[in-house]
């Protein structure tokens, strides 16, 4: 089982779906952010799995995964700083309460 690419990919797919669900269903901005992190991790798992099981992609996989990791870190930084800024204004982390603009 651990020698099967399919198993890893399906696992990544499940994680991606969990993240998607969290993003669509949660109301809290930080929860949504965490869901996105899960999705990005699913991507990384996919990449690593390809790297491990397809000889031509071997080293590339690890490198791309590292890059994705760094991008995720940058995104988290930006997202959390926005969350903090908005919390100063609105005192609530619930996204669907940010509806001042809808008439």
């Amino acid at each position, binding site marked *: 089982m651990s020698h099967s690419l399919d198993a890893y990919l399906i696992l990544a797919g499940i994680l*991606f779906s969990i*993240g998607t669900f969290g*993003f669509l269903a949660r109301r809290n*901005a930080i929860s*949504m*952010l965490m869901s*996105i992190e899960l*999705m*990005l991790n*699913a*991507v990384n798992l*996919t*990449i690593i799995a*390809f790297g491990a099981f*397809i000889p*031509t*992609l071997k080293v*590339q996989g690890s490198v*791309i995964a590292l*890059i*994705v990791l760094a*991008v995720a870190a*940058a*995104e988290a930084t*930006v*997202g959390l*700083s*926005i*969350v903090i*800024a*908005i919390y*100063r*204004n*609105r005192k609530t982390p619930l*996204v669907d309460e*940010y509806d*001042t*603009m809808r*008439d």
Partner: protein
Amino acid sequence: MSWADLATIAPLAAAILVAGLVIVTDIVLPGRRVPALIVSFVGLAVVAGLVIAVGAHPATAFAGAYRVDDLTTYLDLLFVAVIALTLMFAPDYLAARDLPLPEFAAVLIFALSGVLLISASGDLLILFLGLELMVLPGYLLAGFAKRDALSTEGAIKYFLLGSFSSAIFLFGLAFVWGLTGTTRIDGVATALRAIVAGSTPLTPGLAMGLAFLTTGVAFKIAAVPFHYWTPDAYQGSPTPVTGYLSVVPKVGAFALILRLFVGALGPLSADWDIIIVLLAAATMTLGNLVALTQDSVKRMLAYSSIAHTGYMLIGLAAWSSPNSRIEGLEGLLYYGAAYAAMNLGAFAVIAALQRRTGISSQLESFAGLGRREPFLAILMTLFLLSLTGIPPTAGFFAKAYIILAAVQAGGPAGILAVIAVLNAAAAAFYYLRVVVYMFMREPRGEPAPIFLGRLMRLGLIVAAVLTMVLGLVPGLLLPIVGNAARALTL
């Protein structure tokens, strides 16, 4: 990395350096606006010069990961111009709200480096990184008025949906990479060509990867039904940022589409063109219908920018027909430039109106503008006429070109041409409503006169002149656009 590589990425490196320099300037001379502006504008001029210098000799660097061709040069110059215009429109607005200019300029120029990267990428990974480098500063800019609840609110929505779509895009990218074994755009194209030729079958995995990529991109350009973050993000952002957001990330995403769909997935165009046709039709129609019901001009322009995305998608749909490959791309690229000038101009007028805080962008606040501020009102009329597509403005010629390409393509794209003009007629209603308020309604009370900074005035005039020139003498830009389009199709 070699010296040749370094020389090729000089514009990109320069843009990053300029962003850093602006920060340094702010550290050395804290809180000063003029030095930061000077550094920014000089820096942008240098970047533009380097773009032209490097663009004179199409080349690739980093083993094909980075490629400079005529398309790169055209898009880069367009982006530099848009960033410069945004920097002209922003200072008045920011000063009135006590927001720092140097940070704004630095983040804006970081975003510029992102789009420079997109337009020059020969590699899917670079493409993705460019995309991130473009949108991350965008999130920050959207929330730049950090004491304003609307601004941060727009920013968080923009951020969450943007990151969500990035994850989807990346997931698709992983599958395409895993199945084609490469992230180079040429490599992917070669692999796909083999599939089309029938020597290898199209696997379900690859199809899924492509589906994820398309979905991610559709979010990025705010195509219907992936558009729903746009209005909130646009309305909440500081107005000069809204102008920026409605142009750079959108045209940048189209640059990505050109590199991705035309460059890499081109061989499969017969499979995805109907999707593009449907996306285009839905996007322009829904964008226009919702814009019809808006009372806030800023929000109305946000929805109308969705509609313009639809018009630009027609160019892509036309490309996928062999009759009109060049024309479709030319139309798309021309539309990008025209759209940039007129849309930035329209948002700049709103920004000028909001120079004093507390002014909303409701239609009411435009009442009697023709009498109070003839300069702004006439420019706004010009921009709105151009957005409507009335000759002899840039918007007209761009639309005519897109329609010509669609007519030439025939088939489903030909039907798009008719849908597009009916949409344009419907759009006239809401654009002209603003004109009605400006010239045909009297203001309530006695609004104070608006003071326009010199940069703001200059920027507005530049945008207006561009809007007129691109409509009157399209022959100036057409050869450039043609070269850019051919660079991609070769």
